[in-house]
């Protein structure tokens, strides 16, 4: 029996259309728009102004607090303007727009492809380098990586868990990174282990990627303390709490962080970025994303410079299909629908999914038949049918006592509901309101 998490879960159609397509390099666009807020936490403060010359990897916006992240230029050229433009969230946010001229990198960056296994940096230096490089969680949550590595006093990290689950249907960028950059990922894992002072790391991979499991298992023999852990394919295994439950059988109490059970989780893409930052002095200005969809000509994986328009990625894969009904930034379960293709790709862009119109339209919502399927699939052990009614009736006290804030918004309930009820929509509304009430109490 393969391991998986303790409660609920679903198995949507995997549709990993681009799994066998090797990572290609997306051409550098003519202009890039780099938002100063691509992470959870305070937006960075711009340190360049109009007409400044910048190089690839140059700091253009500085972290403005502990939970914040540096932003670097992904191209060389001239700052055209610093202005509010619409980003993938649909809101207007401050971005630095750079006109591209050539491709001149900072001299400090080691551009060779040689694998550097020797980790010379010490614990403090590693965390400092990761913070300087602006690395955030690349699984999609974009939480600044150095924050998770700074273990609060009184707590001890026992194990590092690498999230290589990629449980979202369609997405394959982590899969390709493991196959093509396996050694770099494992060195990155060892760097993270050193930063945390742990001697054990577990790489959790779902068994729908047998080639990645085989490849990393073979390589892991050369690295001390790293175990490859195959997991049963089950959504939402990539959720931090679910992954910890699946790999080390510990459940994080409500409201607590992974460190409570001695674990720190980092994404496999983050491990690669950490390797590049620490061993090659390369800040985070490019990453890999999947462009996919059933009607798309060429579902594939691309390494892109941050700030590249979404449109360029679609064009590289054969252009927007005629029948496109929804453009999703991320996977189909937790991704965000975009209103336009003229928004920039950012640090959190793990993929782009083009859904055909007939799949994009929601079916009519019917009365709840109380089948209890939402309860049985909820990975947090909540009662989505009830939370929806409570949110609708504005019963915020009941919502709080029924643990609405535990919801990880994985969408398993809405996915499963035979009556097509918009369960998660209402739960999100309720969470927003309850969160507000809880903050005002402090």
């Amino acid at each position: 029996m393969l391991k998986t998490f303790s409660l609920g879960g679903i198995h949507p159609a995997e549709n990993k259309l681009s799994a066998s397509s090797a990572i290609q390099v997306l051409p550098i666009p003519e202009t890039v728009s780099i938002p100063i807020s691509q992470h959870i936490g305070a937006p960075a403060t711009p340190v360049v102004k109009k007409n400044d010359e910048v190089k690839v990897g140059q700091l253009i916006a500085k972290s403005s607090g502990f939970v914040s992240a540096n932003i670097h230029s992904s191209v060389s050229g001239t700052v055209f303007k610093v202005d509010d433009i619409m980003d993938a969230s649909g809101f207007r946010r401050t971005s630095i727009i750079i006109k591209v001229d050539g491709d001149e990198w900072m001299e400090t960056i080691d551009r060779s492809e040689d694998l550097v296994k020797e980790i010379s940096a010490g614990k403090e230096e590693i965390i400092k380098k990761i913070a300087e490089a602006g690395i955030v969680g690349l699984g999609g949550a974009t939480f600044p990586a150095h924050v998770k590595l700074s273990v609060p006093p009184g707590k001890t990290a026992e194990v590092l868990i690498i999230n290589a689950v990629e449980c979202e249907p369609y997405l394959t960028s982590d899969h390709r990174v493991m196959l093509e950059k396996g050694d770099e990922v494992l060195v990155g894992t060892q760097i993270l282990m050193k930063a945390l002072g742990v001697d054990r790391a577990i790489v959790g991979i779902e068994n729908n990627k047998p080639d990645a499991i085989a490849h990393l298992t073979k390589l892991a023999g050369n690295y001390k303390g790293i175990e490859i852990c195959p997991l049963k394919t089950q959504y939402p295994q990539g959720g931090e709490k679910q992954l910890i439950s699946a790999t080390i059988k510990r459940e994080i109490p409500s409201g607590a962080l992974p460190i409570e059970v001695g674990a720190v989780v980092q994404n496999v893409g983050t491990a690669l970025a950490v390797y590049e930052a620490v061993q090659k002095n390369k800040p985070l200005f490019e990453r890999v994303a999947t462009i996919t969809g059933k009607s798309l000509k060429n579902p594939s994986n691309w390494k892109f410079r941050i700030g590249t328009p979404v449109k360029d990625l679609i064009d590289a894969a054969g252009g927007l299909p005629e029948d496109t009904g929804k453009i999703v930034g991320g996977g189909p379960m937790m991704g965000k629908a975009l209103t336009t293709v003229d928004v920039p790709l950012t640090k959190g862009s793990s993929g782009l999914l083009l859904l055909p119109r007939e799949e994009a339209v929601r079916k009519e919502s019917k009365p709840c038949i109380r089948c209890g399927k939402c309860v049985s699939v909820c990975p947090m052990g909540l009662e989505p049918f009830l939370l929806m009614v409570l949110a609708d009736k504005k019963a915020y006290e009941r919502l709080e006592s029924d643990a609405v804030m535990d919801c990880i918004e994985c969408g398993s309930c809405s996915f499963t509901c035979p009556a097509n009820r918009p369960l998660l929509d209402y739960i999100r509304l309720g969470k927003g309101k309850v969160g507000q009430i809880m903050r005002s109490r402090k």
Partner: protein
Amino acid sequence: MNTKVLVAPSPHVHSGDSIQKNMYGVVFAMLPALVFSFVYFGMGAIIVTLTAVASCYLFEFLISKYLLKKVPTITDGSALITGILLAFNVPANLPIWIILIGALVAIGIGKMTFGGLGNNVFNPALVGRVFLLISFPVQMTSWPKPLGFDTAYFDAQTGATPLALIKEGLKKGEPLSQLMHDVPGNMDLLMGNMGGSMGEVAGIALLLGLAYMLFKKIITWHIPVAVLGTVAVFSGILHMSNPEAYAGPLFHILTGGLLLGAIFMATDYVTSPMSNKGMIIYGIGIGLLTVIIRVFGAYPEGVSFAILIMNAFVPLINVYVKPKRFGEKRK
């Protein structure tokens, strides 16, 4: 970009499951029992089924259109289930006019007064059945003998159900070992060769339906297993305490409406609890009440009453029995 795109919150994909798929899945699971009832009771079973289904559809349509002034949603398949279950729960020679009253009570009082599908507290088919049982006790307890297509619809040859035989006999003080000679053997009970409501007799067909619903994940094992397990344990204990006064577990499981109730009526989505723990408590309640009514009550059969009583407890169970939350300390 000229293409108009939709914007909505995640998730952006759906399992494709629907109310219809579940309802027609249940109907498909009831087909074996339906076929067996036709084979055992002939023309009568066909007349009863058609009348019950047609009248359930008709009453739901009329009530939603003219009383509730809503667009009728009879295509969801729930009226079909209520119709078939109502037919399953009555003798195969029940007069048409009584069936019509049953359907009106089932749909009208059991379901639509609460606001239609999803809102009813009690299983509609059972509301109809119990109403008929109390109002027309003679017609509702004259069971035609399973003679196949020789079973007449009018003036059929009737006989008692095994449960009634035992109950009457024990009342007169006859020992159980004696009475069991008049009851068909276990194999006959399993195959349904006995008197009873038209859909409840063929245990084997009902079990086939259960297997299908479990395989298709329409229902989970919790309720049927809890009901049957409780009946087996409780009647087993009684039987061991005095084998001459109490029938054994196998007899209790294979006779009367227990399998029909445990598989198709206690598992009704709308009127059963939401969490697995709740379902088990509910199932145990049904099992206990069934045996209590059968052994100590006035009626020889108690499944319908047991389910209806436990239906009333479902809102309470839903409030007090919560699923295990992630990260909760196990006590």
